[in-house]
């Protein structure tokens, strides 16, 4: 029963300026459900990409079924029996269930597709998992849960020994989740090993046999679930697990900002759209407000509404006046700027230099009548390189060549140059080394002391606790709780609330 299926030894993966995985070693046993947990940027997806052939490792070894395993492509990995269910479902909506099941493995003669026995096998498996799905239905009309079942069926009938599931319950209802768990338990009996990536700690205890915790690219520990202290929705701690995931939670670094509670700079009232429900909160001058919640809790959705990317019902007021923020340009004009989640693809112009990136949100600072002054651009770039400690050869260096932390500093400089009263930061230090993390945090504190009002959206609890004066907890698109930061902050209660436990705001 405890036979090793996959042995990972000293696995490392480097990208320019970033260590995504560092010296990871652990084993995955046959016919088990092995959970992998960690915050965003911890290295989970990098590991999976290496296992499934999408990325090549930089160092280390992987043994699969006793033999050395080094897939050169996703096809290689699939042929070896490794299959993946991503969050973005891999089914073709326009085809029928039957066609999807045989996609890629069609039997053909002279190019014409014939009915094969693979088809017979798949429909058997499908029926055993969810008899309500008919082969002739068009996939477009199925629910997310049913589409997942189709993918699982495909994996089984293609003789997969390993099915990797990436946050599979993110889009499922309670009932569908239960059904999925039944299916997963059944998979173990079909000689399939499941690698289950999740944020939701309670799930580990429902279906996991083992759990591996990642943090900052490193494997913190692997435990069998039975060893861990029990964690249920109601009362108890996932104490040991949380401690592993988050590292030390340091409260002593939090320094209260000087907040002017008489000066309300931003207020959202009953903001709703198809992902958010009745979001209401206020932001005060000089305050650092934090939003904490897991993937899918609504953090990004709130950012998008405030910054004018998504529509919503409800009202947004800036300095007491109702505003319609219809696009980012309007937001910037009204005094809101944003540091986006993905700095490379959303925050920067990687082919351009530092000097050309920084003024883009506010070209007025370097140009007159639409004509830009290179001299002013250099001055401004040098000013921020100095203030924010950007490590680069000079202001003409191409931004793509900077490290992650320095790239993020360029993005922050862009916003600083926009001279906004309100700054939104979406996962501001994700994937950034500890040193640069602290520098960016100091910049944020500095800004708030100068009167700016800041909202930090993060899935890293230590970051939220180190920075924010007030913390709003989100779950499933709703605000569950609002906490003032201080000495006696209860991190376990916070984790409990953001994983679906009872909060103290609104109906559950």
């Amino acid at each position, binding site marked *: 029963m405890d036979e090793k299926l996959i042995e990972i030894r000293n696995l490392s993966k480097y990208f320019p300026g970033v260590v995504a995985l560092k010296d990871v070693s652990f084993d995955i046993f046959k016919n088990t459900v092995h959970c992998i947990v960690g915050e965003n940027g911890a290295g989970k997806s990098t590991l999976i990409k290496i296992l499934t052939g999408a990325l090549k490792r930089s160092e280390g070894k992987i043994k699969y079924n006793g033999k050395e395993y080094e897939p050169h492509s996703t096809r290689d990995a699939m042929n070896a029996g490794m299959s993946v269910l991503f969050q973005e479902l891999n089914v073709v909506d326009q085809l029928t269930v039957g066609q999807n099941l045989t996609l890629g493995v069609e039997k053909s003669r002279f190019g014409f597709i014939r009915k094969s026995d693979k088809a017979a096998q798949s429909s058997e498996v499908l029926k055993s998992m969810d008899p309500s799905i008919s082969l002739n239905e068009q996939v477009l009309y199925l629910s997310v849960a049913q589409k997942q079942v189709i993918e699982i069926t495909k994996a089984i009938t293609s003789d997969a020994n390993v099915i990797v599931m990436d946050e599979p319950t993110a889009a499922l209802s309670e009932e569908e989740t239960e059904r999925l768990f039944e299916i997963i338990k059944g998979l173990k009996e079909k000689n399939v090993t499941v690698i289950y990536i999740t944020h939701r700690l309670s799930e580990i205890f429902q279906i996991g046999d083992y759990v591996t915790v990642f943090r900052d690219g490193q494997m913190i520990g692997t435990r069998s679930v039975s060893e861990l202290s029990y964690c249920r929705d109601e009362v108890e701690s996932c104490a040991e697990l949380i401690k592993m995931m988050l590292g030390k939670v340091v409260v002593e670094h939090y320094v209260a900002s000087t907040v002017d509670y008489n000066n309300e700079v931003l207020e959202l009232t009953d903001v709703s759209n198809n992902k958010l429900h009745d979001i209401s909160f206020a932001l005060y001058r000089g305050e650092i407000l934090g939003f904490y919640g897991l993937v899918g809790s609504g953090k990004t959705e709130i950012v998008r509404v405030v910054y004018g990317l998504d529509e919503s019902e409800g009202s947004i007021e800036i300095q007491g006046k109702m505003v319609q923020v219809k696009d980012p340009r309007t937001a910037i004009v009204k005094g809101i700027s944003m540091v986006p989640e993905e700095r490379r693809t959303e925050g920067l112009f990687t082919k351009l*230099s530092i000097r050309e990136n920084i003024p883009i949100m506010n070209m007025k600072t370097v140009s007159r009548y639409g004509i830009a002054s290179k001299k002013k651009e250099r001055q401004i770039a040098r000013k921020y390189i100095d203030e924010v400690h950007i490590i680069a050869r000079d202001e003409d260096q191409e931004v793509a060549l900077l490290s992650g932390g320095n790239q993020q500093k360029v993005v922050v400089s862009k916003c600083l140059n926009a001279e906004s009263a309100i700054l939104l930061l979406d996962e501001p230090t994700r994937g950034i080394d500890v040193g640069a993390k602290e520098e960016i945090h100091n910049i944020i504190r500095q800004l708030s002391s100068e009167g700016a009002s800041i909202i930090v959206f993060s899935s890293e609890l230590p970051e939220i606790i180190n920075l924010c004066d007030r913390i709003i907890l989100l779950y499933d698109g709703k605000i569950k709780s609002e906490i003032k930061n201080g000495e006696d902050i209860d991190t376990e209660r916070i984790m409990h609330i953001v994983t679906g436990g009872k909060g103290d705001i609104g109906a559950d």
Partner: protein
Amino acid sequence: MTIRRFRIDVQKLVIVGVLIIIMVVLSILTPKFLTYLNFNNVVMQVSLVMLAGSAVSLLMISGNIDLSIGSVLAFTGVMHAYMSKHWFPTGLSIFFTILLGGVFGLVNGLVVSKLKITSVIATLGAMYIARGLAFIIARADGGANITSGLPGNFEVLGRATVGPIPLHVLIVIAIVIVFIFIQTKTNLGRYAYVIGGNRVSAILSGVRVDAVLITLFVFVGLLTGFCGTILVSRIGSGVPRIGLGFEFDVIVAVVLGGTSIYGGEGSVFGMVIGALIVGFVANGLNLLDVQAFYQVVFKGLILVVAILIDRLIKEKLG
């Protein structure tokens, strides 16, 4: 000096070097090359490509393309002939024709940015529409082409010279300089690079993407309209069949000059050198009596080789 600045310089240096090599080779191969008359010919051929290419460079830097310019050239040219024959004095007709080109550009810009149709498809449609309109207008005048009844000064724009240099060449030089200025020194130029380099970042940085794109398309339209007036003026009649393949001559010049098809990099200066390279190669092939069909094949080859060399340079330095 940073690598990037160095790399851009190297790129420009390389294409200028290629141009010089081609000129040297051709002057060795045939005595007819290094003559005033020949150079005059080449420049006249190439000047229209450079005129439209100035605006197209900026458009392609922003990640968009305009396949309709050959047809718009024909359409505006025919309109100029028609208008100056029936309605307006030549000067005014030139003015309105340019505006008409601008209107076409405006429509392209609106379709691409507001209707969210990719520029390839949008301008492909415009290409057929403009070509059709060109034939319709010519037909409305009576014959296949508008050849008679044109005002006496119709050919001035296309044929006049200022000393030894044709008038329209001087105009083209002036406009190229203006666009080099726009590309290097204005916010508009910066926005083009930014939109082409990373459109999502541009939107999130508050760049008015729609306004910029529409402006760039309008510029292309205006300059194409201008090309139309110059060409029909040079020919002396409104011919709807002109400009076939013009868009590709321009695109080849722009890409040869260092502009990526995907946008985010390139320059107007590069386009100028690119246009000269293509012009001289075509000219050389003519002088060496190479058949026209081979020339077309050659142009295609130049394009592919240019892109490969560009990639090689990038990989070596990046």
